Each structure stands twice: as C-alpha cells, then as structure tokens.
C-alpha cells in the first residue's frame, strides 16, 4: 500500500513552492530597468486572474465570457476601501486589501452563481455574456459607485504603514503582488486537491456520471464558481493596489475575452497552464505591442492555431514531451526536431516579414523605409519582397517535408502497447 501520511509528502511537495518564492524574491534584482517591474506586476495580476478563470474553464468545464466582472467588482470595492482607509474611517494595512477584494468577488459570485451554474455549456456561457454586458453598462450608468467612464481612483500610500513600508515604489508593490500571487496559487492548488475540486473535474468530464456517484453537478459547479470569484476578486484588489484606479475597462467584455485568450493559450488542462498563458499574453500585449500594431492579429492567429492543433495549449506541448521522456525515447525526436527547426524559423520569419511589409505599404506607405528585426530596408525595392516570399515558400515546403519525419518519430516515441489514442 502506498503511504499517504502527510509528513513525507509535505516536505517533498513544498519544495517547488519554496523555489518559486525564492525566484520571486530575486527576480526584481535581476531585471531592474526598462519597466520590467511594471510588466512583472502586470503579469502577476494576470496570473491570479487567469488561474481563477481556469478554475471555471479548465477544471470545471464552464466557459465564461464575463469573468472580468468579478475582478472588476472586487477591484472597485478595494479602491473604495482604500479611500475609506485614507479618510481614517477604517484601519486596514494595504497587504490585507486583497482579502477584501476576494470576499467581494466571492459574495458577488455567490449571487450570480446561484442561478447561472444550473447549466453548463452554452446556457452558462450566454448568461455570463449577458451579466458581463449588464455590469459593464451599469458601470457607466451608476456613477456613484463606478465613477462613470473615468472610474474611481485612490491612493495606496495613505494606508497605515506595514512594518514601516508605505508602498511608494514599484518594487514594494511588486513584493506585495508576488506574495499574493504565491499565496493565491498555493490556495488554488490546494483547492484542486479537495473533494469538491476533484469532483469539479469529474463534472467537467461527465456531469451525468458525477450525479450517479452522488454529487449534484449544480452544487459542484456552484462551489467552483464561487471559489473562482474569490480569486478573481483578489486579482481585482491587486490591480487596485498597483494602478490605484479602476474603470469600466476592467470589467467589460473585452477584458473577459482577454482572460479567456490568455488562459487558453497557456493550456486549460493543466494547473500551471494559465501561468504560462498570463506571461505570454502580457508580453505579447505589452512588449510585442510596442513593436507592431498587429499584435492582436498575431495573438488571434496563435489562438486559433492553438484551438485547432494544440488544444492542450502551451503547457500541453511541454506535457506531451513527458511521455517520450518517461519512455526513454526522447532521443528519437532530437534529430527530426533539429531538422525542422531551421526551416520552421525561416518560414515563421518570412511570413511575419511579409505580413508586416504588406501592412506597412498598405497603411504607412508614406514612409519608404521600415525597420524589421532591427534591420532597416527600402519597402519600394524588389529585394525584400522576393526575399521574404522565398523565405515563406521554401520554409513552408521544407517544413512540410520534415513535419512528416517529426510525426513518424513522434508516433514511434510515444507508442504504448494496449492504449487507445
């Protein structure tokens, strides 16, 4: 019999968390300049939000188009509380504010979930869409609470100092966010290990059978939904602390869509998927967004390709490779992979260059020269057009040839007798 005593497990399972904590602590000392702390703060907030979203989509099988609402409401209340604290009607150190946001998210999810979780699938998705539209509209109409389209702002530094820290600099805020990211992730991980967390998976896989093992699918969904609301509220309060302002844009449909994109790209089937998704999506938006105005197009294409060819997301891509690793056949893959790498890269660069070139000529045609991958060239000459087209075509052709080899090698490397795939 396997030994299920807590002690051994506790030590070995706490190792990744301790390593994560250490990394989170040293990160801001590695990346000091260039707005990296700003971006890391944004990533942290997105991680909590995306993870909470995955409690619905990945673990519970509920597709929501209005998840930003719970973050937004939590954030709005957090800003109001910040202002109450500033006026000294209430004593609350800033690091505890996310708890307030979380409780508000939880409360709101308790109300909405009571009727929206009755069904999953399309009905749930449509109710969430309706709620999302409704709350976003209320945001503009109810100015007393939401402040109209300007939103509500506060000042985080007016809270009572915590151990002498007033959260003036970005770095101080970073540590606050990092702490809550780690804590929320840990709590969400624990949630997946509880009976209701396990049953959420069961209900996602086969709601009917879940009922025949004694669980009401509605209640299982409801509990997951409330928990997701709680963590979304935490993300909202973190947003309030970091940006000190909340507006309608924090809870409108667009924001909810972004959460879905980020989570799905990361991989909904895995606990850590949304972490990757949040990082990649934020970087796409903030860093790639500075390089090209087509960032949303690229995001959309990546997303569609993921849904079609890699439904398990980025994390799924990593996880897939665990099988050949475990079987000790990873070596079979190295050669075809290295073969396809170069043509693949050439194809990718060629395509992107063509897209950018056409975009430049079409919409910024007045500027004869454009810069791409740090190289400046003349858009009216033939050479770049021919070069990029050649790269695309040849890269594509070679990739296709090598792709067959990859597929064969893959089949060989992952073949397990007796399993249906």
């Amino acid at each position: 019999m396997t030994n299920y005593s807590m002690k051994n497990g506790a030590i070995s399972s706490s190792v990744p968390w301790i390593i994560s904590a250490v990394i989170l602590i040293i990160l801001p000392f590695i990346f000091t300049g260039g707005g990296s702390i700003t971006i890391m703060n944004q990533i942290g907030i997105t991680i909590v939000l995306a993870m909470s979203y995955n409690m619905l989509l990945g673990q519970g099988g509920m597709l929501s188009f209005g998840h930003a609402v719970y973050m937004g409401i939590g954030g709005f209340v957090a800003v109001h509380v910040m202002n109450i604290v500033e006026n000294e009607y209430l004593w609350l150190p800033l690091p505890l504010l996310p708890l307030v946001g979380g409780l508000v998210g939880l409360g709101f999810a308790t109300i909405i979930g009571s009727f929206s979780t009755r069904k999953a699938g399309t009905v749930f998705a449509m109710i969430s869409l309706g709620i999302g539209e409704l709350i976003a509209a209320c945001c503009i109409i109810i100015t007393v609470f939401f402040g109209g389209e300007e939103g509500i702002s506060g000042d985080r530094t007016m809270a009572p100092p915590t151990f002498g820290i007033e959260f003036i600099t970005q770095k101080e805020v970073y540590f606050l966010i990092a702490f809550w990211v780690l804590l929320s992730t840990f709590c969400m991980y624990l949630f997946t290990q509880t009976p209701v967390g396990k049953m959420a998976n069961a209900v996602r896989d086969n709601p009917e059978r879940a009922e025949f093992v004694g669980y009401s699918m509605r209640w299982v969904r409801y509990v997951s939904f409330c928990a997701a609301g709680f963590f979304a509220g935490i993300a909202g309060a973190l947003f309030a602390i970091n940006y000190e302002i909340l507006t309608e844009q924090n809870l409108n449909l667009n924001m909810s869509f972004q959460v879905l994109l980020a989570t799905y790209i990361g991989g909904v089937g895995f606990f850590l998927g949304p972490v990757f998704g949040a990082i990649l999506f934020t970087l796409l938006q903030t860093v790639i967004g500075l390089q090209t105005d087509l960032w949303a197009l690229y995001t959309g294409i990546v997303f569609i390709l993921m849904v079609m060819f890699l439904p398990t997301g980025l994390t799924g891509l990593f996880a897939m490779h665990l099988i050949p690793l475990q079987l000790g056949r990873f070596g079979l893959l190295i050669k075809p992979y290295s073969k396809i790498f170069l043509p693949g890269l050439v194809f990718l660069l060629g395509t992107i260059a063509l897209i950018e070139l056409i975009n430049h000529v079409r919409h910024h045609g007045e500027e004869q020269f454009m810069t791409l991958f740090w190289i400046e060239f003349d858009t009216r000459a033939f050479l770049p057009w021919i070069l990029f087209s050649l790269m695309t075509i040849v890269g594509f052709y070679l990739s296709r040839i090598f792709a067959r080899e990859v597929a064969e090698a893959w089949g060989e490397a992952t073949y397990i007798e007796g399993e249906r795939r």
Partner: protein
Amino acid sequence: MDLFVINIIDGLIYGLLLFMLSSGLTLIFSMMGVLNLSHAAFYMLGAYLAYQISVITGFWVGLIVAPILVTILGAGVERYGLRRVHQYGHVPELIFTFGLFFVIEELVQYIWGRSMVNYSSPESLDFIAFSLAGGTIPAYKVFMLLISVGIFVALYYVLARTRIGMIIQAALSYPKTVEALGHNVPLVFMGVFGVGTGLAGLAGVIAGPSLTTFPGMAFLLGSIVFVCVVVGGLGSLSGAFIASLLIGWLQTFAASYNVGAADILIAMGYEFPKDVYYHPWRDLWTLTLPQIGPILPYILLILVLVFKPNGLFGKRET
C-alpha cells in the same frame, strides 16, 4: 401616434435585419449544435467585401457577389477549421468560433484599415420613399425591408417545400436520425455553415451603407444576435424570428421615448431632490429609458435563461 407608426416601421426594418443574422445562426446551431460566436464577423466581412466590390463595379454587383464570397469563406472555415475542432467537443468549438471572431475582425482592419470606409447606398435609391409624421423614410430603407422580407419568404419556402428543407427540418429535431438515414452529414454541415454565414454576409451588405461600415460594427451587433437566438430558443427558426422583431421594436421604442425614472419616482410620491447632482441616488433620479435601452435585451436574456433555459420557443436542450 404618428411617431408610433413610424417607430413600428423603423423597428421592423431593424428587427428583420436582426432576423437575417439570427436565422443563419439558428440554422447553424440546429444542424451542428454549435453557437457560432463569429457570426457577426461574417456580417462585417459581407459589408467590407461589398464595399470593395462597389468601389470597382458599383453597388449592385456587390449585393450579389459579396454574399456568395462570404458563403464560400464560411464553408471553407467549416471544412478546414470547425470540422477539425469538432472532435474535441462543444466548448472547444465555441472557443474556436470565438477566436475566429477576433481574427476576422483583425484581418478586416489589416486589409481595409482601422477607420470607417465610405460604403454608401446606390444613387438610384437615393430618394425619399414617403413621408410620415414629419419624418421621411428613404428608399434605401424600403429596399432593406424588401430584401429582408424576400429572404424570409425564400427561407420559408426552402424549409417547408424542398427536400433539403425537409432534411434540415428533420435535423432540427432529430439530428442523430438524419445522420443515420445516410445523408452526407459533413457536406450538409458545410453547406449549412456556408449558407448561414452567407445570410450574415448579406445582412452586412445591405446594412453597411445604413449603419456605417467600420471595424467596430461586428462587436456592436454581435452579442445582440446571440440574444435573439437564445431568447427565441436555440434551434427554433420561428423563435428567432419573433425574438428578432421583439428586440428590434424593444430597442427602437426604448430609444424613442424619454421616460425617466424621475417621472416614475415622482408619481410614486417621492420628492425630486434639490441638488440632484450631489444626491446619493443621483444615478437613479437621472436615469432615462434611452440610457438603458441597449442593455434591455441582456436583461431579457438573463431572465429568459434563468426561468426558461430553452428559450421562449425552444424545444431542444441547450
């Protein structure tokens, strides 16, 4: 009273336009069980393609060619995209169509730029059809009305009188049986998806000159179409028809009459606060019907789904 009549006409035109979108959406849902979230993107695509064609050859060619192009594109999307995702289940299908919406929206901006384009009605329809209550109905609106009614009649004829219509009708209620009867289901799927998106494209072609062809047009109309389909009952064509007209009129009348919450509150015996702009209930006191008009459909949507999850006329489980 005259204003009432003219609002009825305006609402009808708008509602029929919505039906053109929601009928395609319903057909697709009925046959394939997937709510096509990218439906409004095909509507936008129709408008932009028609604009591009109209620049070259004039409006009338665009009216014919653009919907056909959209139909082909839609069929292609089904064949090379949706069919692949189908195997993963319903949620991935929904997510796929959702992603498609984004990509089409971005592609349209990539091709035609980010500002509105000057897609206008043909000069031959540039006159006033008739006047009523001091307002005029332009001929183009009448043309829109005629096209919508024409589509409605044609759709009705095809579904009620033709063999393919029988198959589709049967598939509304018994999708599995139809498949078992040996109909080429993949081909029917492709056709239905193509025709459904083609209808959306046609709606875009005729709505483009009237409601402005701009990159936000899909997002603006998108979710309201889902409301029509869901409220009417997923998979029910007549439900979609009634819901579309209902929402068309709901929105038109909500925008037309400046009923304010203040009137109601005063009638209920409350006193209008002196300095309303600093009153804690200021938002309630200054609330008017047109302000909340666009969100009324969503309230309707939530109420219907909560109390009648199958929609007003739906029979199928959603």
